[in-house]
């Protein structure tokens, strides 16, 4: 968005701000066993305003959304809609009041067309008692909504054929068809390419011009800064602060979110990087079989791998780790060619992966901490096939001390640990095996700021000990703060490699969209 349009948005928002609030929360409280998710929150939403809602994980954002959607009931306080106060909302009350959601994970049916998705559960009928779905009327009603949103697809397109950004438009069309008065976007841009994010921000502005209120939940502070009329910051279930458009700045947002000035500790390298440890020559992945990737990773360096979602970073990591078949090219480790056809091959060569989706692919939640740590390395704890529980325990205890895993006993089930501690368990299992290369895919996603610093320190300590680290990350601050060099991918190829002196958000983004770096 340009400065002009930002100004325009501001002018427009100035007018409805005087209107009666559509929604007013007063002292809303909600606790879950052991957590005070919301501790007396007040919030007003006026027609046509765009509110940025930010806060760390666990600040209470999702709880707030659940209460508004009628999925959970508050323990106390009132929710007032158009001046009528409720102690709780049911799902149908929430829909009837005109509150609609566009979730991060979309609730669409891939096997149905756009019109059917928009009208799911409230299909227009015809032929009286025969109750046949009137698909023609359905399509006719959806077409103008899609036009309004500038969607370039027709109502009879199968949703499964649409891109993620287009599917979001379907969700928005659904909200419009329900005469929504408040549309809540829950991290809508987190998995969108940049150009698509821009379009979405423009659509939010358009909704707001029509008098529809928007709540925009996002971790991307720059977007919040651009799109929101005002920002509400939550911390520990309370209102940490409100900022008007003029007051919004990155630093102030961060300060409000975490309650203090935070300098994430990145730790500078102590040792110079060594020679080439892992060399990729002409690697082609299934996602981009025509692009051959060459990349040298040095001993003792942290190489950040940046790029947009879908640029082929994860696929490259999976190919190096032997999970996906390689369509050509080879790897060499310390100058020797190696064949990696399976994850066990990679592990055998000392190449390890810390996957992005920790709970789904990184860790066994119903194994104990000790069992998780020993799993890849059972040979070391076994003699004649028999696993020694004592040796396993000693290893886990050592890791616990070394990495600061906060757990009373290594026999605790991993499921009960926090995200940061689970990630440390994943790291611990590889550290116990004298790693040579560690690939970290989004190492701190969903981890609180405190644990982030600890994980960065650990990564640096490993690199200083001579381990090569490849870190895939979409978090710009993290990539720039942690990396020794940044390789940027675009459509399956390495579009450029930046050295520390060249590090800037702008340079990374330019390379990510395939442009050259400004000298």
């Amino acid at each position, binding site marked *: 968005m340009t400065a002009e349009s930002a100004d325009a948005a501001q002018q427009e928002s100035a007018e409805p701000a005087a209107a009666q609030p559509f929604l007013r929360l007063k002292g809303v409280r909600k606790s879950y066993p052991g957590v005070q998710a919301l501790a007396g929150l007040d919030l007003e939403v006026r027609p046509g305003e765009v509110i940025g809602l930010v806060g760390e994980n666990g600040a209470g954002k999702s709880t707030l959304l659940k209460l508004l959607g009628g999925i959970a009931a508050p323990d106390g306080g009132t929710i007032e809609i158009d001046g009528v106060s409720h102690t709780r909302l049911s799902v149908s009350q929430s829909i009837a009041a005109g509150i609609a959601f566009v979730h991060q994970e979309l609730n669409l049916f891939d096997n149905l067309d756009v019109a059917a998705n928009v009208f799911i559960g409230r299909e227009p009928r015809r032929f009286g008692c025969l109750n046949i779905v009137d698909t023609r009327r359905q399509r006719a009603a959806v077409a103008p909504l899609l036009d309004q949103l500038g969607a370039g697809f027709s109502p009879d397109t199968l949703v499964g054929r649409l891109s993620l950004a287009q599917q979001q438009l379907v969700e928005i069309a659904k909200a419009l068809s329900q005469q929504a008065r408040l549309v809540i976007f829950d991290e809508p841009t987190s998995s969108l390419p940049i150009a698509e994010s821009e379009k979405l921000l423009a659509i939010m502005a358009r909704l707001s011009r029509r008098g529809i209120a928007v709540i925009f939940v996002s971790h991307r502070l720059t977007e919040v800064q651009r799109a929101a009329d005002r920002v509400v910051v939550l911390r520990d279930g309370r209102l940490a602060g409100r900022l008007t458009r003029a007051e919004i700045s990155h630093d102030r947002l961060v300060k409000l979110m975490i309650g203090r000035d935070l300098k994430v500790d990145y730790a500078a390298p102590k040792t110079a990087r060594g020679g080439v440890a892992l060399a990729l020559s002409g690697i082609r992945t299934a996602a981009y079989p025509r692009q051959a990737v060459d990349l040298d990773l040095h001993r003792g360096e942290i190489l950040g791998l940046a790029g947009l979602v879908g640029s082929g970073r994860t696929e490259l990591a999976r190919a190096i780790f032997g999970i996906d078949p390689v369509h050509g090219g080879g790897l060499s480790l310390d100058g020797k060619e190696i064949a990696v056809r*399976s*994850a066990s091959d990679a592990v055998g060569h000392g190449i390890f*992966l810390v996957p992005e989706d920790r709970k789904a*692919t990184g860790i066994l939640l119903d194994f104990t901490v000790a069992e998780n740590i020993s799993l890849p390395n*059972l040979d070391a704890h076994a003699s004649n*096939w028999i*696993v020694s529980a004592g040796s396993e325990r000693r290893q886990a205890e050592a890791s616990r001390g070394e990495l600061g895993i906060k757990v009373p006993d290594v026999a605790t089930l991993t499921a009960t*640990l926090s995200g940061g501690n689970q990630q440390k368990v994943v790291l611990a299992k590889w550290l116990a095996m004298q790693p040579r290369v560690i690939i970290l895919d989004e190492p701190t996603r969903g981890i609180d700021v405190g644990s982030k610093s600890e994980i960065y320190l650990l990564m640096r300590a490993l690199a200083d000990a001579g381990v090569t680290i490849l870190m895939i990350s979409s978090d710009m601050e993290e990539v720039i703060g942690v990396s020794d060099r940044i390789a940027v991918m675009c459509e399956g190829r390495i579009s450029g490699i930046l050295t520390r002196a060249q590090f800037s958000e702008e340079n990374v983004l330019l390379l990510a969209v395939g442009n050259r770096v400004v000298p």
Partner: protein
Amino acid sequence: MTTDLSLEKAIGQRTHSGFVAWLVSRQIFWVLLAAVLSVIAMSLLTSTFATPNNLFNVTRNFAFVAIVGIGMTAVIITGGIDLSVGSTVLISAMTTTVIMHAGLPITIAFPAAIAASLTVGAINGVLIAIAGMPAFVVTLGMMSIARSIGMVMSNNALIYEFGPDQAILFAIGGGSVRVFGLPIPNPVIVMVLLTAITAFLFNWTRWGRHLFAIGGNEKAAILTGVPVRAVKVSVYMFVSFCAGLTGFLMVGWLGSVTTGLGSGMELTVIAATVIGGANLAGGSGTALGAVVGAGLIEIIRNSLTLLGISTFWQGTFVGGFIVLAVAFDRLRNTETSE
């Protein structure tokens, strides 16, 4: 904050719950209790149950289901299923029969029977683990194929001539060993040994740990470098080995083989493992559970017969126990998740 609390809770559970609480939380304990109570009740109610002869039969009968059940447990722990075990029993029995009928010694027939069974398991395993086909469909197909091949091998003749080693064969399958003066049927001895060995494998070896890892979260297991494919193939070979062993023992016990041998056995075996606490979604199960589950099913069957109740009621009881077992599992899960 969430974590702190759940941690405290976890520690609390660990320290406050003693052995009794642990025991009571085990499904196998309740199944065992049901079995023991049935035995006591039957001993008091009838004069026919607690006779050496009847007990000998009961234990031998359930040993066959239990042996296959132990193998099935391994498959189910990994989140798989094998419907072809009944047909594998037939393949093994037929191989034994055909070879011995031709006058060859048992030292050739037994390895051949086991090899034939392992081949069935290897085919299942490769199709499931390497070709990535669903276990249910692969083994459903194999159930049909293996039975049909067994029928072809029989050449539609009922064989009860087993060549020079016939006496040895009958002694192995139908005989017994005296332990502390009590005659214990050989299949029961095999079952006990297999249970001990498998329990050991499950709890103390790399293989066992890998089974639970695969059943708990296959993706995480792959990314951790667990040789998932090899382990899965081995598991289908293991259950086929158990089925092969059973087939061989059954020939010796029955003295002849019909093409219906082992037909429908897969469902009884799966029922036994589920009653014994294995979770069809993978990740949990014990070797002893399958044995106890098989025992309970056989006691029910035998009791109904002795009480003069139509065997048609057997399915109602067994089915009831399956549903109860799963209900118990649900109950336990909701308790821990709260």
